[in-house]
């Protein structure tokens, strides 16, 4: 059974990699026609096919054929999907996701908002920082189902059209990054840091920005950027 289970998981991985577009979104950019068929396919369909699957699972080529015919998608239905409604950067989305999907993966792979970065994926680096109902959190440790009904803001939601957020401007002005990978998380955290009232001194900024690691070591410039925005008094 281990090999069967392994195949199930491989199928799921393949599924999540291929079907990265928004599912059942109110305004999806492109929705493949067969997506609806998949969502409407029942567990009974899976059970019908699973007997066949068990029989062929030890033979490599039929597995490939089964995968190609979309069987793996039906396998995903073995596990119940959960409806989730989210408002991300002012846009409402209706999704159907597996409970194990993190908010980070949901944003990046289903909503194609890849500004939020996957760094450590274990809550140790802060690259995935987003705001949930205005509060900064690590999206890598947040399950998508647990933020259903909530408002999410990502780095893509800070600018107003072509006008950058003051913190984005300040990061550019002060060279608050080198490689840029941690920058979306740094900026989301920096905005929250000021909103929380924890940007009153260099020491306080460093303490309250400690959840965002910068491997390039741009910390002094990040602190300068935050101090300028704080002292400028612009609404963040």
């Amino acid at each position, binding site marked *: 059974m281990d090999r069967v289970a392994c195949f199930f998981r491989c199928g799921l991985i393949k599924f999540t990699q291929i079907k990265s577009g928004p599912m059942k979104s109110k305004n999806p950019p492109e929705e493949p026609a067969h997506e609806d068929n998949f969502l409407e396919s029942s567990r009974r369909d899976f059970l019908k096919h699973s007997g066949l699957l068990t029989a062929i699972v030890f033979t490599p080529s039929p597995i490939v054929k089964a995968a190609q015919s979309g069987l793996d998608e039906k396998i995903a239905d073995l596990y119940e999907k959960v409806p989730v409604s989210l408002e991300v950067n002012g846009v409402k989305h209706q999704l159907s996701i597996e409970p194990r999907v993190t908010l980070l993966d949901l944003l990046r792979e289903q909503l194609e908002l890849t500004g939020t970065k996957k760094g450590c994926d274990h809550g140790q680096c802060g690259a995935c920082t987003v705001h949930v109902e205005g509060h900064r959190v690590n999206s890598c440790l947040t399950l998508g*189902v*647990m933020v259903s009904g909530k408002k999410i803001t990502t780095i893509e939601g800070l600018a107003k059209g072509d006008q950058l957020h003051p913190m984005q401007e300040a990061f550019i002005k002060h060279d608050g990054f080198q490689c840029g990978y941690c920058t979306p998380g740094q900026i989301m955290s920096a905005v929250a840091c000021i909103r929380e009232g924890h940007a009153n001194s260099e020491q306080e900024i460093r303490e309250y920005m400690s959840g965002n690691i910068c491997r390039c070591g741009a910390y002094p410039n990040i602190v300068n950027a935050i101090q300028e925005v704080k002292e400028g008094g612009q609404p963040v």
Partner: protein
Amino acid sequence: MRQFQYSRPATPQAVIDAINKPGTKIIAGGTNLVDLMKRGVTAPGKLIDINQLPLKNIAPVKGGLHIGALALNSVVSENKLVVEQQPLLSMALKAGASPQLRNMATVGGNILQRTRCAYFYDTTMPCNKREPGSGCGAIGGYNRMHAIFGASDKCIAVHPSDMCVALAALDATVIVQGKKGTRRIPFADFHRLPGDQPELDNNLAAGELILGVDIPDNNFAKNSYYLKIRDRQSYAFALVSVAAALELDGNIIKNARLAMGGVAHKPWRLTDAEKSLIGKTISIENFQNAAQIAMQGAKAYGSNDFKLKLAPATITEALKHASGLV
């Protein structure tokens, strides 16, 4: 991460009914559990999300302060009542994790968080806590973060919480609800030492749900200090931490509370050292004496030998801050 089923009951009773089933775990903030699930350390078949329960309140109760199990670490640390009446708790919470994690982590989850022992996290290594009977990788291994008090030949892991060190010092009570109703567990009795069953972190019975904690009123607010020593200035687990709270009458210590973190399988209360301070004047000599008393029975395991010097120095320094000598 393995697949799991998910449900979000609305009442404590519904949660208690649900968690009695094997393979079921509660999720609140998820900052520890999701990490453990991603690493394959645990793989529950069903998660019960308790965030619908009305357990977020922070309010005065007769003789103390009640904090609900779902109150967020960030909210508790900045709550006016907590800052004014129990500043030690606020300081300890702010010393833990990062602002993002504190915005997610709950009081109940903080109490129940698992050790950060690297051998517990690495599923290719032996660990009696993760897999009873498999051995302990830390004994004879790389044990820099590990215990110097109360360990066993089965496990030398430490409890990683800062908040719990303060709650232990402040004589908090954990309120839990199970099939048979509610019961109150003194904080000192909540967590346990590893002994022969390191897989058990605490004395919470199967199917019990933490409702919150009560902290009794005290006169420590003016002279409290939480000192955490770690590898970097912020956002790291403690090598050693000390919660110190004093009640002073001029220069005389009327009452004292001391607890250490990063040194044992549970928050390590220093009752003998506390007693040694009662009636004494505030002085570095008296603090160093208390620290020596606290270190009786300490045992290091190689990589953590430095803790035998770091711990008493941290106790002395925390007492200096709490008493106003610094």
